[in-house]
């Protein structure tokens, strides 16, 4: 799990252009949206694409996004459960 979280940190910094951040600065349990990293709706779409492109996971119901993308840890847990 920790290895996956580390990988996700690097991927998120790259796809979301968080150029000012180092992976170590991202708290895996902090909220990704609103407070925490302060991501926006375009970032949410980018995370959906990341899941599909890098992990082959398609989110069928957009309502699930709120729970899946709550934090890096919830993302990693979802990937672990759903990756084929």
């Amino acid at each position, binding site marked *: 799990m920790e290895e996956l979280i580390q990988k996700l940190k690097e991927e998120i910094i790259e796809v*979301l252009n968080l*150029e*000012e951040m180092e992976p170590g600065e991202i708290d895996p349990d902090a909220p990704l949206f609103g407070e925490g990293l302060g991501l926006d709706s375009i970032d949410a779409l*980018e995370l959906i694409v990341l899941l599909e492109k890098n992990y082959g996971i398609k989110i069928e119901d957009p309502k699930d996004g709120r729970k899946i993308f709550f934090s890096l840890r919830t993302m990693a847990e979802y990937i672990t459960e759903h990756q084929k």
Partner: protein
Amino acid sequence: MALIIRKYCAIRDARISVDGKAVFSYEGQDGFKKFIRAAYKHYQTDYPKFFKMDNLSKLGFFSVEVLLKGEDILKLHPAEKTGIILTNASSSLEIDEKHFESIKDRGHYFPSPSNFVYTLPNIMAGEAAIRHKIKGENTVLISEHFDPELVFCLVELAFKSKLLSSCICGWVEQYENNYESLLFLVEKDKNNSAEDIIFEPSNLTNIYKLEQKDGRINTKA
């Protein structure tokens, strides 16, 4: 009604000048991204969204940032009467190509939403308008090279039509590591001072040529 150029700025070759005077230069020879990032930090700009913009928007946004530094334009002019009128040659071609790469293979079809957001050059002017709360005319036109007549006609028309009382206008061109901008802050002449630079095509041409001579702007025409 005479219009004057109250201020102008140019960016090219890792250098920034304001009213013909160099104000920042970056020694690194490692391309646009490193330069604009260094300039952003030098100017202590605080706008995290900057890093999410495409390169054209970064250049346009930052050029306006330099031009308006120390200016409180909305104290002098209503937001609705302040406009941004820009021209460039490559439109948003660089990010268009990036977007195309992500969608050309139907079996590997992963368009990036953050790329797609920037597949219009107008977004560049929009980003600057949002930053400075400018709500007037907002336009980007494509022209093969910096065309003083075109810029003059567009801006003069906007003033004559009473759409604007101040305007940021000029040229913002970027494709890969080729980039240059030349922006003017134009207003109605209130003081009729001899020191004012009249906003007219010949003066735009002269400033462009002077910047070329100083090595800050290259010749594209």
